[in-house]
């Protein structure tokens, strides 16, 4: 079975985002960009399924600017077999992304599509669920365990209050949560090898998808700043402050 893993190029998670002075967005000029961490977990999970003999081929796909090639090369260096870059300089919304991935899924017929539960830039948490709707496939979101068993997959999900396991008929959509696995680092030989793995470049139009945005961003601003309060000298002073707020046993 093939596994499709969408990956997104985003602001590196260690970089503190800065809102642009003109309020049009977050400044992405000359800052470190990396693969969305949840997508990295998706690539890792696909590789583990291949190592177990469940998957036969892993196809990484990214929708983004030419530089998203770097993100795809990272996926290839980790262990994906080939890559598709759907190149566009426009910001593509989850609904349009899901339509592109649906078209690719129709062509490639994967058994699983593994996506990050959300990208850490726009925090939408939508694309996987939308792809599931468009394909009509079952979805296992926020996965902390994925076990393929014959023609179905059991997905353990991180839900409010604990864990839940669902059984999904294949093909299916999985979205990853943080604790599904710890992604590997690509070794130097594998980084070199990745350079010669196939990478196709396409455009949204090749898939007949209109990426015109449905949601307009009117403004991006800094969140309200919370100012520091006071330092208390000792526990007694803290107890007095709390009692003044009505906090006591």
């Amino acid at each position, binding site marked *: 079975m093939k596994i499709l893993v969408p990956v997104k190029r985003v602001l590196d998670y260690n970089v503190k985002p800065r809102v642009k002075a003109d309020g049009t967005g977050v400044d992405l000029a000359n800052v470190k960009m990396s693969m969305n961490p949840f997508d990295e977990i998706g690539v890792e999970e696909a590789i583990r399924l291949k190592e177990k003999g469940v998957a036969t081929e892993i196809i990484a796909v990214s929708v983004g600017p030419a530089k998203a090639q770097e993100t795809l090369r990272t996926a290839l260096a980790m262990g994906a077999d080939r890559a598709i870059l759907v190149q566009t300089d426009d910001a593509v919304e989850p609904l349009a992304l899901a339509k592109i991935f649906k078209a690719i899924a129709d062509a490639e017929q994967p058994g699983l599509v593994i996506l990050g539960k959300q990208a850490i830039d726009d925090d939408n948490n*939508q694309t996987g669920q939308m792809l599931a709707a468009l394909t009509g496939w079952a979805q296992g979101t926020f996965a902390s365990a994925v076990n393929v068993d014959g023609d179905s997959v059991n997905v353990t999900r991180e839900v409010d209050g604990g864990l839940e396991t669902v059984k999904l008929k294949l093909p299916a959509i999985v979205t990853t949560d943080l604790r599904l696995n710890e992604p590997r680092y690509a070794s130097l030989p594998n980084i070199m090898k990745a350079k010669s793995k196939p990478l196709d470049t396409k455009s949204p139009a090749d898939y007949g998808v209109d990426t015109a945005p449905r949601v307009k961003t009117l403004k991006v601003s800094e969140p309200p700043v919370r100012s520091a309060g006071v330092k208390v000298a000792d526990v007694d002073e803290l107890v007095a402050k709390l009692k003044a707020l009505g906090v006591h046993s």
Partner: protein
Amino acid sequence: MKTLVWVEHDGSAVKDATLAAVTAAAKLGEVHLLVAGSGVDGVAKEAAQIAGVGKVHVADNAAFGHNLPENVAPLVADLMGSHDAFVAPATTTGKNIAPRVAALLDVMQISEILSVEGPKTFTRPIYAGNAIATVESSDAKLVLTVRGTAFEKAATSGGSGAVEAVSAGGDTGISSFVGAEIAKSERPELTSAKIIVSGGRALGSSEKYEEVIVPLADKLGAALGASRAAVDAGYVPNDYQVGQTGKIVAPQVYFAIGISGAIQHLAGMKDSKTIVAINKDEDAPIFQVADFGLVADLFNAVPELTGKI
């Protein structure tokens, strides 16, 4: 505008997250509710009493028993024929179902709204809450998820919604519920607690968490939380995690104990009314957001606090 609000429930009672979604929906127009599940008469009656509620659509069917989105989303999409906005709390259930509904309707969802600025204009957090975007939808219908801590809870009484059965939908047969491990606890839930006591990496072990954090929470009737570092180190279960990738909370009082205050954690608790930080590192970033900071060894200070409060 006619809105359809997803009622989050546990099979017997309406969950608090629903009430914030009702408040958000009321800013848009008429509030109708959807109670989907198996044997949910009681939930529907309770939901009908929420202040300001018009109609309560009840879809009682075994196929809806575990909120499987494959079964529930087509039901919602069907009801959206006569509603203008689908509004769900941004819980794991809401986040699972709403985007599937949105794609079935061919509309973009607006996730985790913080405020309603106009009939189609909302604010929402991006970059883990490090920026706030004001966005406007151009779709004919709206699909929204609502961050529970950003809206007041609607009153649970005073309403008199008309309960109406919905017969649409059923089991698509492509997914099934296998089981759940939901922690049973006498404590308030993290996302609705008035007081939260959270512990961080500085505790060093699950034994110390039990020994230091739990007694303070017991004494205050508080919910228990933790930083991602403490969860990753295995001191407490995953669902204790407060932060951008865990739970977003906004209690009256939040105790951050032995938590340095990574951006990730702050994003999950900075809307708390009062923040109390106890940490021995006086330069810890948590003190920049704390209303009351105590620079002290938590292993001495917290038991003393527990004794004196």
